[in-house]
């Protein structure tokens, strides 16, 4: 199962259409720090894809390439059927609006309150909305992550878990079709991690989003994953469901699940 994946991306269900398709992605930092060595990846509609791998295996680089934060050296990234590497800035922005990105730290704007963090993004993209309509959408997004009471707080007043939830609410406010999670449960206690994992699952079920979830948290992977891929040395080393990979013949792959 592990070797042939390097060439042909595998889909779990052929009926589902790929919403993100990555082919032969290469990225080297500096002169010889090669991170991605021909990565092939597919994300299907309504699918939660969990990406596992050691630190430095290229997980975060991959999702940053998808949204255009990092420019790959070679390869093709198709999002909603468009190669994001060959489009104009405006076209890329039109795609970015349809993709949510949850940063590891939450990346809330420190100088703004929670309300402003959410309304800022919304008001930039929906300039015709009235103040009341923006407020309504902000409260709806906050309620969806269970933090409506934090609306007037500043990011410095929030705990790690709350920051992640608010970050998620900020992502959800634009109603994205794809959400990319960069280690959503890192640095959180077990209970909060589980709450975030349940929230990810809840969002997928309610809003029908497709997601790529980068995590080292196996409980999160077990709960949220429809499919898991394991990266090693810049390519996919193994792929399957949680149950399949847990019993994989490769000891290195199994070690993630112990």
């Amino acid at each position: 199962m592990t070797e042939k994946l390097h060439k042909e991306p595998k889909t779990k269900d052929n009926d589902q259409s790929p919403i993100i398709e990555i082919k032969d992605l290469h990225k080297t930092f500096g002169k010889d720090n090669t991170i991605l060595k021909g990565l092939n990846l597919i994300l299907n509609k309504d699918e939660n894809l969990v990406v596992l791998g050691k630190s430095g295996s290229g997980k975060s680089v991959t999702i940053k390439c998808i949204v255009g934060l990092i420019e790959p050296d070679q390869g093709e990234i198709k999002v909603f059927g468009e190669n994001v590497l060959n489009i104009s800035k405006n076209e890329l922005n039109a795609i970015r609006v349809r993709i949510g990105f949850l940063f590891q730290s939450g990346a809330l704007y420190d100088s703004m309150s929670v309300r402003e963090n959410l309304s800022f993004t919304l008001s930039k993209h929906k300039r015709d909305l009235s103040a009341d309509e923006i407020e309504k959408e902000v409260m709806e997004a906050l309620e969806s992550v269970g933090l409506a009471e934090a609306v007037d707080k500043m990011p410095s007043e929030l705990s790690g878990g709350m920051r992640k939830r608010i970050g998620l609410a900020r992502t959800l406010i634009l109603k994205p079709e794809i959400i990319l999670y960069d280690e959503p449960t890192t640095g959180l206690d077990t209970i909060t991690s589980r709450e975030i994992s349940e929230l990810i699952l809840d969002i997928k079920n309610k809003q029908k989003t497709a997601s790529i979830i980068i995590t080292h948290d196996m409980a999160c992977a077990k709960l949220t994953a429809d499919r898991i891929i394991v990266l090693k040395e810049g390519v996919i080393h193994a792929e399957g469901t949680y149950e399949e990979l847990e019993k994989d013949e490769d000891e290195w792959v199994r070690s993630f699940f112990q």
Partner: protein
Amino acid sequence: MILNLKNIFTEIGETTIFAKKFFKEVFIPPYETKEFFKQCYIIGYKSLPLVAITGFIMGLVLTLQSRPTLVKFGAESWLPGMVALSLIREIAPVITALICAGKISSGIGAELGSMKVTEQIDAMEVSAINPYNYLVVTRVLACTLMVPILVFFADAIGIVGGYVGINIHGDVNFYRFLTQIIQSLEFLDLFPATIKTFFFGFVIGMIGCYKGFTASNGTESVGQAANSAVVTASLSIFIIDMVAVQITDLFF
């Protein structure tokens, strides 16, 4: 040595490319007017007390230091005009710009640097919001417009300081003091000095933004961005001043 020189030229080149983007972005909507006025308030209004204190001290000290020499030559009556000319043409623009480099450039460098390392700038980018337009254009524009206003303010307060200085040793009527200043000033004393303050403001904002935007990941780089912004902006102010004086000398 050669490596250092290479780094300096690379830095100048990269700053120029970064600054070039400003002239492209400043005309492209959306115009972030709310953020621009907020920055004008922070950069302009909040710097007033500092500029007022230094402006007053500049005027007072300059008067007290110049007086003995002028008295020696029996030219004490030239004191108001000389103090005003020195303040308006050189001292107030340069000192105010240096204070702004310390306060504003470092503040912008630290703020944007910390936004960079905590991925807030990336978060804007992936939300399809142009961080250059929102963060850089507004701050640079606010600096370019606010620094000249702060310099005018420092000129005025400095003249008041000069009046206090003169009155320590004698009794001069304020109206007479002002009349002497106005008589000794020409339009050409004000014009080049004002023009150069716009360049000071632009450089202060641009260098702060550049240093913050290019901070590498890690909290240490935030401090470095702030420190480097002050040093580079201060040095640039002196270089601009030297060039401005040469050009003024050439034409006027």
